[in-house]
């Protein structure tokens, strides 16, 4: 009965997966590391299922074959004083087989760990990811300082190229986890951790914080966008540019609103006077597909609603509500939309 229930459950789970976008799933690996772990998973699952089936079969057979009794049935105490070789052998064999299987699994794990650790890192893209309450700061590192740039919550990487993430935290412990690419790694204040991965196929992969980090831990997601290499280079080149100067009056007015309201206290837009680093870098805000750390799609309506009252969508968000007149808001939106 239970087995059937499990089977149907699994089926249901599989069918509910159809709607899911983009992948955030350890069972749908798209990076070399996630693949290696997935291989290990399949082996482990197989071994464990067999063991489970064997134990359950032995148990069920034992209770099926044993005669029944009542409270008053005379207990068999004679066995206290005599060895029971018939029972001993299966128990010893069972323990021995368990030990052997465990060794197999441990060895498989070591092999997988080596696979994970031996990703060739030549020409790797280096990205510094900083965890904040509750968003991800992303900085593309380069030997040449002028080629560095910042963005947030959306990490573009070239498909087929190794990526080195340098993980830091600005406040509490977070954990970077994009299950389709690799396992997770904690971002620990006072320490720096490294995470290497490579994704071989272009695509969009979702991830989210996996270490409880307070209020809005649930809404601290990010996306990793694997672009074909040339497309990635084009993207990076654009990101290195400062924000375009506002052209129309409305856009100019929008920038003015940005500078004189609360926005400029926290956000930076390269190419303007806004240089604060407390919130996500907005230089190329319009090029990102999501806002509020993967919480809302980056559309005009959502962005405007978010600016007016972030707590409506993300109760603990540190961004304060900004009461703007319809006119100011319109101008601000017009300006922000130019930040491609």
């Amino acid at each position, binding site marked *: 009965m239970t087995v059937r229930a499990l089977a149907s459950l699994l089926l249901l789970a599989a069918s509910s997966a159809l709607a899911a976008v983009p992948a955030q799933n350890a069972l749908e690996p798209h990076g070399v590391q996630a693949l290696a772990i997935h291989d290990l998973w399949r082996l482990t699952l197989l071994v464990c299922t067999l063991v489970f089936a064997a134990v359950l079969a032995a148990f069920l057979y034992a209770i099926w074959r044993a005669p029944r009794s009542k409270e008053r049935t005379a207990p068999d105490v004679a066995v206290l004083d005599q060895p029971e070789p018939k029972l001993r052998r*299966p128990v010893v064999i069972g323990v021995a087989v368990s030990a052997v299987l465990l060794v197999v699994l441990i060895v498989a794990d070591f092999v997988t760990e080596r696979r994970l650790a031996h990703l060739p890192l030549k020409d790797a893209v280096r990205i510094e990811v900083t965890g904040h309450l509750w968003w991800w700061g992303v900085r593309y590192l380069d030997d040449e300082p002028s080629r560095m740039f910042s963005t947030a919550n959306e990490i573009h990487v070239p498909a087929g190229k190794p990526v080195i993430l340098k993980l830091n935290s600005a406040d509490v412990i977070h954990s970077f986890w994009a299950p389709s690419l690799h396992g997770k790694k904690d971002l620990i204040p006072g320490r720096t951790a490294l995470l290497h991965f490579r994704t071989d196929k272009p695509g969009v992969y979702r991830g989210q914080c996996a270490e409880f980090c307070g209020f809005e831990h649930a809404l601290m997601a990010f996306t990793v966008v694997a672009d074909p290499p040339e497309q990635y280079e084009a993207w990076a080149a654009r990101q290195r540019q400062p924000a375009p100067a506002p052209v129309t009056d409305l856009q100019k007015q929008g920038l003015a609103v940005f500078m004189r309201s609360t926005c400029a206290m926290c956000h930076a837009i390269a190419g303007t006077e806004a240089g604060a680093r407390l919130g996500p870098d907005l230089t190329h805000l319009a090029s990102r597909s999501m806002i509020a750390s993967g919480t809302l799609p980056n559309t005009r309506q959502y962005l405007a609603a978010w600016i007016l009252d972030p707590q409506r969508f993300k109760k603990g968000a540190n961004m304060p509500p900004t009461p703007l007149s319809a006119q100011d808001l319109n101008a601000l939106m017009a300006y922000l939309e130019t930040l491609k």
Partner: protein
Amino acid sequence: MSADANNPVLDRSWSDPPGLIGWLSAINHKTISIRFMLTTMGFFAAGGVLAMIIRLQLARPENKLVGPDFYNQLFTMHGTTMMFLFAVPVMQAVATYLVPLMIGSRGIAFPRMNAFAYWIFLFGGLMLYIAFILDIGPDAGWFAYPPLAGPEYSPGKRMDFWAQLITYTELSGLLEAVILITTIFKMRTPGMTLNRMPLFVWTMLVTSFMVMFAMPSVMLASTALITDRLVGTHFYNPAEGGDVLLWQHLFWFFGHPEVYLIFIPPLGFMSSIIATFARRPIYGYPVMVLAVIATAFLAFSLWVHHMFATNVPELGKSFFTAASAMIAIPTAAQIFCWIATLWAGRLNFRTPMLFALSFFFILTIGGLTGIMLASVSLDLQVHDTFFVVAHLHYVLIGGAVFPLFGAFYYWFPKFTGRLMSERLGKWNFWLMFVGFNVAFFPMHIAGLRGMPRRVYTYPAEMGWNLLNLVSSIGAAILAVGILLFVINVLVSRRRGEVAGADPWGAGTLEWATASPPAPGNFAQPVVVASRFPLWSPGGVAGVVRGLADDRREVLVTSVLDAVPNHRAMMPESSIWPFVSAVAVTVLFVGSIFTPWAVVWGAVLATPPLIVWFWPKRKATQMNLEREVKP
């Protein structure tokens, strides 16, 4: 067969005094244990209600039932309650009832300390729940990782209450460990050598030793957290030379053994229940004992597997992978021994047995997923996801709660003199079993499909909706099952079938005395010559004569072979453990608000403790009259 006879003199000398003051002064181990069990089960119910709210919130994506602030308090309280206010103490609570009976003793060692430990536990739990009701419930997780739980990111007093709760429960737990070890080592009835002890007593002995090495670690860690928060020490402040991972090391050095503190006593329940309902001793007694001891040792060498996602050195991780996997071997050995026992036994499927047998299904799954978590690489994927939630509930509910419920069905007649309803019991069991699996199995899949733990909401398009809905339905079924248990207890306590001394035809000493036992347990303590004295042809080997009935005298025997050594006089009932616990509570709660509370709290707590110790002239006089010098 029963060595029990009515003995009003003995009853009077071991009874708790009447009245309210008497109620607060009670120190009889059975009285305290019943209160302890009821208290822990009360917290279990409270924790369960919190869990139901969590499941309601997660039943649908983007649910607005509770907000993040309350949700964080909910799951923190749920975890804290289940770990610190239920799972560990309930085992000790049951043990303080059963261990003296199983070893044929009239009482427990240090009975006043036992009462004190109970009151401390109760006050700690009440403090936490009162704080929770006042919106000062802790909200940084039951694991309270700094810096999130530290002064900067958990302002206010919420986490101080949490940290102080740790002090309470660990103090209580440590005292109980000392009490149980002394009881087990020194108060066994003559003839009960170590290798004739019931397996449950063995598991409690091992558990108590583990408590003594594990709990100091978390007490120190939480003390450091309190001082960080209250007086500005820097244990967890990286800017001033502290380290946030220090907490994780200390916490998991306790936290992992804690799982085994919860899991090992139920192994003893299993052995008691299976032996009785398979009508034969457990196969492989020495293996069972050694397996438990091996588990205890290994349990201290795998705490780092909770930290695989941090940047601890890779080589170290491999060691912990191996250790974590190897701990499966002693458990496997025990499972095989039980299966062998069932194989060669004659089985009686009463409700306690059903609960015990469900272990083979649920715990085996939990153990196997545990092996997956031991692997560094797999852990990197499933760590901190719902997969772990599923795993830990399979281990703790399958490995501890189901056997515990079996134990309640099994020993309920001993506690109350009446059997629990078998019909309700079967319903209770099957609802819990089905509900549990429906609730927790889908979580494995949700975790693998990318759902992290401790999230108060999730987007609708992640593909987790159905899994979560099924989990919530299962949780509701599980809750109905547990509700049936409560009903069964309430009904059977008054109307259940009268049990008699030994309703199950069991073989260990707790069944040799009346149900419920008289205040002095055994009118005539027995001499044993077997692991199952009541099953031996001719019954127990003999009786112990010469223990006074008109006062609280117990026989103290040698550690290994239980050779009679001396007669010890146990203390009279006293209100001072209660008063001391109140005073210590003032100290603990006060020190949440000001460090000076440690000073004036200590000044307040010292007099009751001295009065507690101070001998009474009359009792001393009586003792002197009968004193026999060594």
